[in-house]
């Protein structure tokens, strides 16, 4: 205890000398930054909450009054509690299962029977948090598949004007198509082609992921094409002076040069993919946040609207975090340090 007090007094004296040397201008600047970066958004958020809680009271729906922030917060907590309860039930189930397996082993039951007992899965309902992870996994799968297809196409069509004029009409035709128009087609095609006794992925997962893919392709293709075709003529001349072959030219000059544009495309794609996924899950009743929203809507209890609101906020938050993640990647891969990325 004594040593703690000692160190405290030591620190305070140091702090005091710091404060005397810091000039008032830096302090004022730091304060104004604090106000701009923290206080202003905070105040705006509080005003938003105020308007929401006041405005919501005046909207009477068939499921009761539109929920205000307090009600939504309450439901968020309750969703979390449900998740914990469900997890506890699952743990209890597996504990019981393990006991039965141990007992069967002790009784000297045949291995086949033990395996059958051990292979049982807990079949409780999916909680809100399970749905979040399903959606995230689906969107990432669809997005990565789209990127793997779109980047090579974009590079090729950026390098070859002929390929570009061949692909451009198709891209322009499919780019504006709503995901919901693709969904029935994707569902039917997946059902028809993906026939397997022991499927690695569920059909609903594939349907959602492919729908996401179909909508994620276009921004990446277009931006990669623009990036590649915009590689500076001077740099291409350098590559000619050095007599690089096509592969080296592509890998060492064209791809690095087009990387910032590629990331712009990828970031747009992921944003679109996330929006598309929620709609697809809702319409197709595939597991995920979209299904959660739809189920709550159909459920029609007095808590449903607040729970939907929780889902809306979480969808927004995840979309925001995905975008920030891509922005960080984009910043670290972008050599164009003068570009302001936001």
């Amino acid at each position, binding site marked *: 205890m004594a040593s703690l007090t000692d160190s405290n007094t030591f620190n305070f004296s140091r702090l005091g000398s710091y404060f005397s040397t810091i000039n008032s201008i830096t302090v004022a600047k730091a304060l104004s930054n604090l106000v701009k970066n923290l206080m202003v958004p905070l105040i705006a958020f509080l005003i938003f909450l105020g308007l929401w809680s006041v405005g919501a009271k005046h909207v009477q729906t068939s499921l009761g009054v539109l929920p205000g922030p307090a009600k939504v917060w309450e439901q968020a907590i309750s969703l979390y509690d449900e998740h914990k309860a469900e997890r506890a039930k699952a743990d209890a189930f597996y504990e019981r299962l393990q006991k039965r397996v141990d007992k069967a082993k002790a009784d000297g039951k045949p291995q086949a029977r033990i395996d059958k007992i051990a292979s049982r899965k807990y079949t409780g309902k999916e909680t809100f948090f399970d749905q979040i992870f399903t959606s995230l996994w689906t969107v990432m799968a669809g997005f990565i598949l789209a990127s793997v297809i779109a980047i090579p196409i974009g590079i090729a069509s950026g390098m070859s004007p002929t390929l570009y004029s061949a692909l451009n009409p198709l891209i322009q035709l499919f780019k504006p198509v709503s995901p919901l128009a693709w969904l029935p087609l994707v569902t039917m095609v997946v059902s028809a082609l993906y026939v397997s006794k022991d499927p690695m992925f569920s059909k609903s997962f594939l349907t959602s992921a492919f729908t996401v893919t179909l909508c994620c392709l276009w921004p990446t293709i277009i931006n990669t094409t623009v990036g590649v075709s915009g590689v*500076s003529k*001077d*740099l291409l*001349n*350098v590559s*000619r*002076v*050095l*007599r*690089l072959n096509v592969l*080296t030219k592509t890998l*060492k*000059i064209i791809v*690095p*040069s087009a*990387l910032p544009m590629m990331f712009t495309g990828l970031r747009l794609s992921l944003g679109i993919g996330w929006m598309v996924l929620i709609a697809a899950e809702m319409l197709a009743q595939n597991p995920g946040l979209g299904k959660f929203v739809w189920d709550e809507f159909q459920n029609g209890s007095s808590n449903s609207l607040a729970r939907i609101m929780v889902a809306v906020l979480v969808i927004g938050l995840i979309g925001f975090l995905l975008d920030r993640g891509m922005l960080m990647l984009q910043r670290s891969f972008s*050599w*164009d*340090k*003068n570009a302001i990325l936001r």
Partner: protein
Amino acid sequence: MTQLQLPSYLDQPPAVKDRFTRLKQRPVILKVDALGKQFDTPQGPTTALQDIHFQTHRREFLCVIGPSGCGKSTLIRILAGLETYSSGQVLLDGQAVNGPGSDRGMVFQGYTLFPWLTVKKNVMFGLERAGKGRTAAEEVAREWINLVGLEKFEDSYPHQLSGGMKQRVAIARALATQPRILLMDEPFGALDAQTRARMQAYLLEIWKNIDITIVFITHDLDEAIYLADRILVLKAHPGEVQELIEVPVPQPRTVEQFLSPEFLATKKRLETLIHPNRDTHENVGEQLHMVRMVPLDDSVSSIF
């Protein structure tokens, strides 16, 4: 100011005359013979270059100068192998030039460094492509970066460098692969006057110390006279050799020579070649139609 009596640009001091005799005895590096280039434009074929003749000797500094549209950029791009030619021949060490090659280094006007690579990696790029191992390439790159005085910046990225520094890296990159000839297409055109003067001095210093023949394109008369052994003056429409001037200013060059009689005489000659009949058709529309827009009773009614 009284009209200065200038000597003829053809009068070479004995030392200069002697030097040119020796220069012309050196082996020929680059020989351009009856070179012609036609473009196809929507208005029909145009002749960009016609019957270009010249040759450079080993370790010579040749400047190419001419009015805009004289095809000087086309010429250097042909020498670099970036463009084809329609007739005649280009011989480098007696070998015909067809397409780019590692025997010619090139420095462009725009900063053509790879923005995603550090200074060192930029210089290493060509070396590694030429088949040098990583450590060997790094060693050579370090040497060249030291030579251009940028050892403190070897791990910096191009966007952290000034324009002059970027061009120094570009020169190091072009020279690192040990070309026979260095082609420079208005390399200092985008730099401010002070940086430009410093870069010219650097370039002369580099040229003095290594075995390199330089073909340098510029539109700046002072730059051409200050740098060159000989100046190839082109004329426009079509691009033809107007004169190959042997610069009578003694070597080694210093900044003080800018006002020497030989320098001024050469500059006067270049001016008459590049801007002939200044007062006739060239300046049509150059007259301003200014009228007095300051009241006569203004407190500052005249600036004189």
